[in-house]
């Protein structure tokens, strides 16, 4: 088993052989991947060393101290957080070798073609069709709310392959080439003014069968891997005390004594406590993972993260008073990366509204906690054993 000492010396060797000062960014990242230091818990040959996940911190600390470039995870979050774990678990050897390196290095951006106009929370109701044609599949349909589709080289896609089966059983999971001539991406403007997400029209898109992940009809199960990782990656980052949204508010509070009121002070302290407890909850979750006792607490993180971000940024707009009446910039743009704590308070307030919708709404996550964690009985439902084509829409 690889230990911290070995990782440290491997990292130093990488730095000696490819000095960050004189090596191009991409070249350095490729060398890091090939040295197994990209994500140490991944298999050898795929950017890792089969080492315990917790030891990544050892590598990251060495690299940060040496001023090495990183792969800017904010730009490639969907690839790193959702596509990669799914590729790792369900991809063939060829698929893993082809996709993981450019994904991690950031040469290829990924997007997620899951949601549709008629299938959001009820994702398994999706209607985009994939039909077998020799060694290929031909895909027709419409996806929506697709973040980064305008930047993406590849997409993870779920589509219906058997309309006669009940909805959860007729879905198959694919890797879709976003440069296929049948893929059309149109920006969708958000309440912030910019267009992070898009609608994506798929017309006769051809996908080789080799780019299928998991069995035909088993796509719902494969998608669970993606969705679980999505919830962990939203709100799961390690932050110091007063990191994230609360840090912005606290700084404004300290720098602007003239804005303070007693009522805002109480609410500030309430939120400060909640943010600190959320930080500790994340720390505890990580300690559980390291100790090999993963708990269901992961599902708590995104719910708390969304609520807190919204409350904190909302309070900051109020605190700013006259300035809170202003907004930085409404001009429509298609951003390269998403930064929840970026820009001005007004932007943060509006962007954080998406935190309780993207990656599963807070209502749906509460259902999941109630049923899977607490074991409360499900609501009666009428869609489980009906063929997808016979469902009401």
């Amino acid at each position: 088993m690889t230990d911290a000492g070995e990782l440290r010396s491997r990292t130093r060797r990488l730095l000696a052989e490819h000095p960050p000062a004189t090596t191009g960014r991409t070249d350095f990242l490729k060398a890091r991947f090939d040295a197994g230091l990209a994500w140490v818990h991944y298999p050898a040959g795929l950017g890792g060393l089969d080492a315990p996940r917790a030891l990544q911190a050892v590598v990251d600390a060495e690299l940060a101290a040496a001023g090495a470039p990183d792969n800017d995870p904010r730009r490639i979050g969907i690839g790193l957080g959702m596509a990669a774990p799914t590729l790792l678990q369900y991809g063939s050897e060829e698929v893993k070798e082809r996709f993981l390196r450019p994904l991690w290095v950031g040469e290829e951006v990924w997007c997620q073609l899951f949601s549709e106009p008629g299938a959001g929370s009820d994702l398994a109701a999706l209607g985009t069709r994939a039909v077998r044609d020799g060694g290929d599949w031909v895909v027709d349909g419409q996806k929506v709310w697709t973040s980064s589709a305008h930047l993406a080289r590849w997409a993870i896609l779920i589509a219906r392959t058997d309309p006669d089966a009940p909805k959860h059983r007729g879905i198959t999971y694919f890797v879709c080439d976003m440069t296929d001539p049948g893929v059309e991406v149109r920006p969708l403007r958000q309440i912030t003014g910019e267009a992070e997400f898009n609608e994506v029209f798929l017309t006769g898109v051809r996908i080789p069968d080799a780019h299928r992940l998991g069995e035909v009809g088993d796509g719902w199960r494969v998608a669970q891997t993606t969705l679980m990782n999505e919830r962990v990656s939203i709100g799961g980052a390690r932050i110091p005390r007063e990191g994230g949204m609360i840090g912005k508010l606290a700084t404004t509070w300290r720098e602007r004594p003239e804005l303070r009121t007693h009522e805002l002070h109480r609410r500030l302290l309430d939120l400060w406590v909640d943010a600190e407890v959320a930080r500790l909850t994340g720390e505890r979750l990580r300690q559980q993972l390291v100790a090999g006792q993963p708990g269901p607490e992961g599902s708590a993180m995104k719910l708390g993260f969304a609520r807190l971000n919204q409350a904190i940024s909302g309070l900051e707009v109020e605190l700013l008073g006259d300035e809170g009446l202003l907004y930085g910039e409404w001009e429509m743009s298609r951003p390269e990366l998403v930064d929840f704590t970026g820009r001005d308070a007004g932007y943060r307030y509006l962007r954080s509204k998406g935190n309780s919708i993207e990656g599963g709404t807070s209502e749906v996550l509460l259902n999941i906690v109630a049923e899977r964690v607490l074991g409360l009985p499900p609501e009666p439902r009428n869609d489980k054993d009906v063929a997808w084509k016979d469902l009401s829409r």
Partner: protein
Amino acid sequence: MTAQGDLLYSETEDDLRAAVRALLADRAGHQTLLDRIETADPYVPGLWKSLAGDIGAAGLLVPEELGGQGASHREAAVVLEELGRAVTPLPYLTSAVVATETLLGLAGRGGPATELLAGIASGHTVAVLAVPLSTAPDAEPFPSGTPDGEPSPPAVTGAGPLPAATVTGVADAVAADVLLVPRADGLYAVPAGEATVEPQTPLDLTRPLARVTPEPGSGTRLAEGEAARAAVRRGLLAGAGLLASEQLGLAAWCLEETVRYTRERHQFNRPVGSFQALKHRMAQLWLDLVGARAAARAAADALATGAPDAPLTVAVAQAYCSKVAVRAAEECVQLHGGIGMTWEHPAHLALKRAKSDQIALGSTGRHQDAIAALTNLPAPE
């Protein structure tokens, strides 16, 4: 980023929990408590001896060379989680935590504090700090006054002027052998026989409160000046930090009980626990509990390791866990419907404990004020 203390439970802590839980289930079930809480003596006979002596829980904070177990706040926190779960009347928080920690602040000096600790650690002596249960760690419980040690002017409460040196709302004073009494000229150990202890009627019948009047000139002085003040602050800080674990245990019981009941109770031809309005309330409670567990563990660990930010971590845990325990107990009553409103059902024991705990060792607002000061987030001028 500074390293985060250990927020998990060790195997030893799990074993201790199992032992305490088994003892309480066997000897202090809800029916036993309901039968006793309205009598003059709510403490279950012999239970203290079993917990303190046989399991050794009373001496967890006391080093082995002073007659204790040489464990830490982390283990004591686990005991308190169980006592909170079962809402057990026992002088654990008061004697084994607050008084013990206060005396530990003086033990380096040898003498009577050290002797007292050995007695407390073995469970033979119950000692209680004679301050109101509501006293926050940053409060000033020492009267300013005359050199003879009696306060002046006399302490006054809503009930009108009282005889000199009376303290009201002292938790577990009725069980105490020794009272630790803050006086103007220092901290005194007063044998219970040399004080008048008059029981009051508490909201939480599982934590008896009393009015305590030590005889003038009674007792032995343990320390004076800043040494005495620092020791009492230390005792109250440990108490507030570990109270969070009691609140966590109580909230966990409330949620488990509510989930169990709403899964079984049928109305409208389905379990009431299948209604989404209730599921979301219970799921939200679970989220709060996950946070409370992290906060309470952080406080226990910070106290155990003497972390420099322990006062902040304790204030965060108190501000958070108080609120969670009250909400859990209130939801427990509401989601049980009519039965939750009965004396027979144990939900009210949890509710009364949670509501009293919210005031104990500093209110939420008081802890928030401490946070504001410690983090440089000041109130308006």
